[in-house]
């Protein structure tokens, strides 16, 4: 019941805001919702794989880390796409995006393999597909 009232209220506020022409496309990328249905499960699976890898590294007694800095080029066209890519990199354990300018992201990876996987650009292509035709 409470949830229904809340949903009605937020819908009403959105309606008012759009009538006052306060909305823009970037703040409310609702056109991405359809593609998010397959993007989020893919991202969660990636996180689980990378997370178990990092856990193994932490638990192994020798601590076999080989920290690497690498520059990655983002092929997304819009700001929303690039931010999605950088956030996906950071959310995946083992890689953290340190610095971002235009379409170049500096990434700190905990192992060399992780950095090379990222440089291959599989995640980049998937995020580009997620961004798709609805780009700004």
């Amino acid at each position: 019941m409470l949830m229904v009232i809340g949903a009605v209220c937020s819908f009403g506020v959105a309606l008012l805001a759009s009538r006052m022409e306060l909305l823009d496309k970037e703040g409310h990328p609702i056109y991405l919702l359809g593609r998010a249905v397959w993007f989020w499960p893919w991202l969660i699976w990636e996180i689980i794989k990378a997370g178990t890898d990092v856990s193994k590294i932490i638990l192994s007694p020798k601590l076999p880390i080989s920290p690497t800095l690498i520059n990655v080029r983002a092929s997304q066209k819009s700001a929303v796409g690039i931010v999605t890519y950088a956030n996906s990199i950071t959310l995946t354990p083992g890689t953290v995006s340190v610095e971002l300018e235009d379409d170049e992201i500096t990434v700190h990876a905990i192992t060399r393999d992780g950095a090379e996987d990222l440089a291959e650009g599989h995640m980049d292509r998937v995020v580009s597909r997620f961004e798709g035709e609805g780009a700004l």
Partner: protein
Amino acid sequence: MEMVLDILSWVFLLAGGAFCLIGGLGMLRMPDVYTRLHAVSVIETLGMGGIILGLILQAGFTLVAAKLIIIAALILLTAPVATHALAQAALHAGILPKLDHDKTGGHIAGEDESSNS
């Protein structure tokens, strides 16, 4: 049915707790700031996800489950922002990561070559 749900939420809660402990251990063992960020991201994704999923299975289809989903979504959205801000601030403060392989060739995005002594 009740039994299956209980066993599943046991599994998820134990996995979440174990990942939290692993992340905490990583916090203590890692050598510098940037590598500790990776240990924290294990806590904030897998540990949090496991525990929240276990709680959702116990709560069933109620308002409590909706609130738990909201908490999980908020943590997943805000954690990378905080992590990125921390890494960027650390880099700008002049703390250089201990590296085995530097593939950037000394060039870091957003910095001039000259300022990179």
